[in-house]
């Protein structure tokens, strides 16, 4: 929300109702006290803080929300939800918007985090038990940040941490089929943002 252009306010509440239904939270209950932003460990790096996200939903600013980096930087530490005086699960609200952005294939404002999660998620049916080398390696390649955390590599090798790999699991094939079934179920359902 860097621009200072006037926002046209209308009674349109579809977006708010959508978020309310999928997150199960009372968006209008938020009285904008800011305790969430004040306690958020990643607020310093966000385009807009959690409080502003709540305000944006109240005002129906759908596009701004889908394009902000807030929904990607949120690590779901739940500090906001735990302390909110109106008992709103703000992390859950973030989740609803993030999943909507994924569904609508909006270009993520933080592409690195989006890539990381996609890689991790795709490694689960392949490896069954995910190990950091595969994860880190794949991430570094695909995100085109080949030097990320490489400073730590030598010491990891010396300490024998790199060679520690989980034993393969016989459950991997089960997991693979779960992924297939889930994808199908998701496609079949009308709205697939939450269960």
């Amino acid at each position, binding site marked *: 929300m860097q621009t200072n252009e006037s926002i046209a306010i209308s009674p349109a509440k579809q977006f708010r109702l959508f978020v309310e239904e999928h997150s199960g939270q009372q968006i209008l209950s938020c*009285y904008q*006290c*800011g305790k969430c*932003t*004040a*306690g*958020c460990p990643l607020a310093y790096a966000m385009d807009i*803080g959690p409080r502003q996200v709540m305000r944006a939903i109240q005002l129906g600013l759908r596009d701004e929300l889908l394009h902000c980096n807030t929904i990607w930087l949120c690590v779901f530490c739940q500090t906001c939800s735990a302390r909110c*005086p109106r*008992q709103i699960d703000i992390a859950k609200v973030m989740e609803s918007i993030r999943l909507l952005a994924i569904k609508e294939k909006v270009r993520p404002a933080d592409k690195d985090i989006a890539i990381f999660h996609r890689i991790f998620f795709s490694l689960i049916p392949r490896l069954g038990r995910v190990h950091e080398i595969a994860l880190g390696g794949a991430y570094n390649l695909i995100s085109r940040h080949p030097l990320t955390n490489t400073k730590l590599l030598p010491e990891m090798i010396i300490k024998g941490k790199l060679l520690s790999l989980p034993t393969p699991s016989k459950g991997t094939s089960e997991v693979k089929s779960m992924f297939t079934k889930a994808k199908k179920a998701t496609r079949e359902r009308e709205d697939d943002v939450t269960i």
Partner: protein
Amino acid sequence: MARVGVFICHCGTNIAGSVNIDEMVDAANKMPSVVYASDNKYTCSEPGQASIRQAIIDNRLNRVVIASCSPRMHENTFRRTVTSAGLNSYLLEMANIREQCSWVHSNNKEAATAKAIDLVRMAVAKATKDEPLFPKEVGLTKRALVIGGGIAGIQAALDIANAGHDVVLVEREPSIGGHMAQLDKTFPTLDCSACILTPKMVDIAQHPKITLRTYAEIDNVQGYIGNFHVQIRQKARKVDHSKCTGCGTCWQKCPEKISSEFDVGVGKRSAIYIPFAQAVPTKPVIDTEHCRYIKYLQFVDEGEEGKKPAECRICEKLCPVSAIDWEQQDQILTEDFGAIVVTTGFKPFDPQVYQEYGVGRIPDVITGIQLERLMNASGPTEGEVIRPSDGTHPKSVVFISCVGSRDDEKGRGYCSKICCMYTAKHTIMLKEHDPEVQSYVFYIDIRAVGKDYEEFIRRAQEEAGTIYLRGRVSKIHRKGAKLIVQGEDSLIGRPVEIEADLVVLATGMEPSEGVIELAQGLNLSHDSYNFLMEAHPKLRPVETHIDGVFLAGSCIGPRDIPECVAHGSAAAAKVAGLFSQEKLVIEPLTALVDPLKCVGCLACVQVCPFNAPEEQKARDGRTIAYINDALCKGCGLCVVACRPGAINLRGFANDQLLAEVVSLW
């Protein structure tokens, strides 16, 4: 033979706008037992009432039905009207065709009219079975009991006493004064709190019509309006106040020092003590939990093992008038009162649940009331505002509003009303104490609705230079000798961090400890936060649903001092009004037990919320129930609970209600 007259009111267009009055009059004329029906634009007006009176006389009516507004509005008025025409006032029935008809069915005139006619039909059927009823008279004791010696109770007691009636003021602490005595200055005038309070406290002590009982509690209340029987427990002070002169030697020399409740933990008192210098009475009590000699006596009595406590008794040895009385026991005094005023006040919210603020772990996080004690020149630090951790003067002070208020997460969703104001006051006073102090206030909204309150906030912002930041604080953590306060300024839209020397939490108000037990003893209602409930939030702010019991002050909800004083006076006016009567009239719409049908199961005793039914012995020795008219509210629960159908409700008898139902077919 019933001769019913039906009077239908237009109420301007309130009723006539949605109901066809002419049709109603026609229908009424055709109803059984109706010998007269008419309509009027404003029945409650002088001419309206006159026409009813005339109609009763001219048509020899012996039952009256008025179809108009809710009985809550004008039933009393119309009862007087029929009485003035020579009829018993309980031969009147009202059909509510306004609140229960025209006002809610304004979009369907046909249906509204049909319903209004039905309502009149029912009222007519009931009226034909009305019996004359006669109110009872009871005597009343013109003595008032005020429970709680804070500013509201003090005001109430003084006003009732000045109106010429005896008052007993009961206070469970050793002194009256309440929380106002703890304050340094009051907003918005910055009057010294003790200076305006202590004259009233002294008036209480010296007033010939006021009996002050401090260090006393209410054990039990029985009875009803005009006739309450109360057991007051005078707790054992272990000091004979009739001998004590208040010289102060004992509490100055007592070696046992304990954290003072009055100083909210920032100061100490002795085991024999007065809570503060201007205490009324200025005579001490002994805190038996901490007194060394009492502990010694317990040790010896119970044959305990380990180190024997000292046999102290220094107070006894030094007392020039031998006022110490170790044998003194709690005393139960039974007294009669005609009215009770409950002024139990509030207690400050305990912020222990705010662990994100490090309450109880970080010593420099204190509450507003603790700051008051520090700022007070007669307080534990003689007015020096110092950090609890190292005794230095803070230069950067952060105030956090809404601690324990507007916070559903911590179980307190309401606004405590006074915190915005007292926080502004604190920042102004801090600036007076030390011009180099910078205060910051984290707020969500500023509530400054009283007279001169808005100007007071501006004074804090403009004159005292207090920086107001809109946002709640999420976390406080220590860094070296400082506290880092993490909040947000939602107006500029950025998280903010402040390095503070001292953090003051603006804690809210909650009901006093033990108020629920008292409420249950008096049958008073309370809300989910345990605040006592008034009879009507708008129109009856100092009465309760229990006749003769009044409320005043912050026991009802958060309020400031002027409101508490006004409340106290209002409650006193109610009491004086009550006491201006020689006899009390009890409405006869009460339940009556037919002893011939009663089997003595006492189900009525169990269901009645007002303790009206009592167990009695009939002449033949059987157990039966008897209903005390003065306590009965006519709610009808006992009528329903009564298995043999022995109870009937006067004015709403079983055959009357059946007649109403039958009339609709």
